[in-house]
């Protein structure tokens, strides 16, 4: 069970970063750390001891396979994560061109 706890600690590190950091890029980095920990969590759920990767070999069919469903979910979630990161980076680059800084406090100050 240590692996599950480490995985959740990673999630919390990301959450801590989002709450405390005041830099746009750092916030994006923290979000992507949360994302990574979630993927790890799903992969851990599906693992079965002694299982093999879920690819059927017609010649030798009797085996234990790991659970393919969480893997399919992560496959979907990875691409969704890429989409959200791209959106976030687009807004960040736009904000940087407007204000010339990544610091969220200065942006607030400039906006007044």
């Amino acid at each position: 069970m240590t692996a599950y706890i480490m995985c959740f600690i990673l999630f919390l590190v990301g959450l801590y970063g989002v709450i405390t950091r005041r830099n746009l890029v750092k916030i994006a980095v923290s979000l992507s750390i949360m994302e990574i920990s979630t993927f790890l969590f799903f992969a851990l759920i599906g693992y079965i001891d002694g299982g093999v990767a879920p690819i059927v070999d017609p010649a030798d069919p009797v085996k234990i396979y790991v659970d393919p469903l969480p893997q399919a979910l992560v496959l979907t979630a990875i691409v969704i994560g890429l989409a959200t990161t791209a959106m976030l980076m687009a807004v960040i680059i736009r904000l940087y061109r407007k204000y010339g800084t990544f610091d969220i406090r200065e942006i607030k100050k400039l906006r007044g």
Partner: protein
Amino acid sequence: MNPLIPLLVVIPLAAAFLIMIVGRFIEEFNKYFALLVLLLLTFISFYFLCTTGGKITVYKVGGWEPINSIPIGIYMVLDGFSVILVCIINLIGLLSAFYSISYIRRYTAGNYFYALFFLLIGGMNGVVLSGDLFNIFVFLEISVISSYALVAFGVESNELEASFKYQVLGGIASFLILFGIGFIYWKAKTLNIADIKSAFGSSSDKTTYLFIQILILSGFGLKAAIIPFHAWLPDAHSSAPSPISAMLSGVFIKAVGIYVIVRLFFNMFIISEPMAILITILGTLSMVIGVFLAIGQWDIKRLLAYHSISQMGYVVMSVGIGMILLSRGVKADIASLAICGGLFHLINHAAFKGLLFLNAGAIEYTLGTRNLKGMGGLAKSMPFTSATSFIASMSISGIPPFNGFFSKLIIIIAAVMAKFYLLAILAVIVSIITLASFLKFQRYAFYNKADDTKDQNIKEVPFPMVFSMVILSVICVLLSLLVFPEIRHAILTPAIDILTDPAKYSRSILVQ
């Protein structure tokens, strides 16, 4: 297996891509095509409203039949509760699209606007019609990502900043939800909502359930902007173009926030008293704090956005009262009354908050400002906007002939009958403060003397905008008909039955 159900999701998604391809070559294609498609969708959804009634229809995507009564494919579920949401989404969507015909002329890239608009609608339809937990997440992401882009549609600095804030909080919410889904899969080994209910039913492990419920509640609570999670809403809803604000505030926070919370906590989890009390407290807090935050605002759209938080608080509170009573197993009739009030108010809120945001858009379109202090005397020059916004303001603050009064009345009666006197008193006080706040809005915007410095050629907004506002105000008046038992029985009772009888949903899905 009604073959029309997937069409509600596929048509808007396909329309978005068609607009991107064909709209490149044909000018003005996007507007008329959008109207046509939304008209079709509204027609389909009202057809469902008339035919669904009390039965639950399941559509098995891919034709995968359950094995040993364990579903293996994705289910789409249409029942009395989701059909109400489908109608709201498509109807408000149609009116907003009609309104945007003239409103969006000031912006560049109309094709992108309509494509994202359709993705927003398709995503929300997908969320509401889905019976599978991960599928809800995927469609939620479609609608949420398109709303990120639509909030920043004007690419001014405040819009970008609002979008950034929204994206960060929305990102946290998404990962909390995803983690919660992982937990549920770990515990139940299945993703179908009805099947999760039956898998959960056998074991009793309080701590794990509580943790899962808190993850899910905070995730979807962030999407629904219940009070400790509300920080993104005023910025995002006030920066978006007005038709989009109407969509976001009138429909979006309900479809991806309140709907999913209610659906999961009534039909998937075992109703537990601590969670019910927590939900009621959160609802009450949003109701009270939202309205106090709204008083001090001078920006119209921010004021309306804070009122959204407060009005959603009414819905969450009354649903929470129903949950408490159900979890205690007493007074089932009062529980169904409370839930009825909540759903009624949810429908009403979609109508009048959509209308108010459209009014705000009309004022901004004419004057170019959103500050209440810079307005005045608009009642003469903009009669339609003034009249419709008067109806909406009276509706939201609960003045008798309009719809808001009846739903608030039902909520307060339910709270009194369930012996939550404090909540009833708070609801009345909040309603009075709402009235004061909207009287201020009316007075400063429409009835005060206009500044002499302003040029006097203020005209009424173009026809499409007027038309949408008038239709919505008619709907506002008509919705008060729902208070009559016959009509209420036809529309609201199927939804209430599904929520008050928790086992019914899972039972009737698993046998199909």
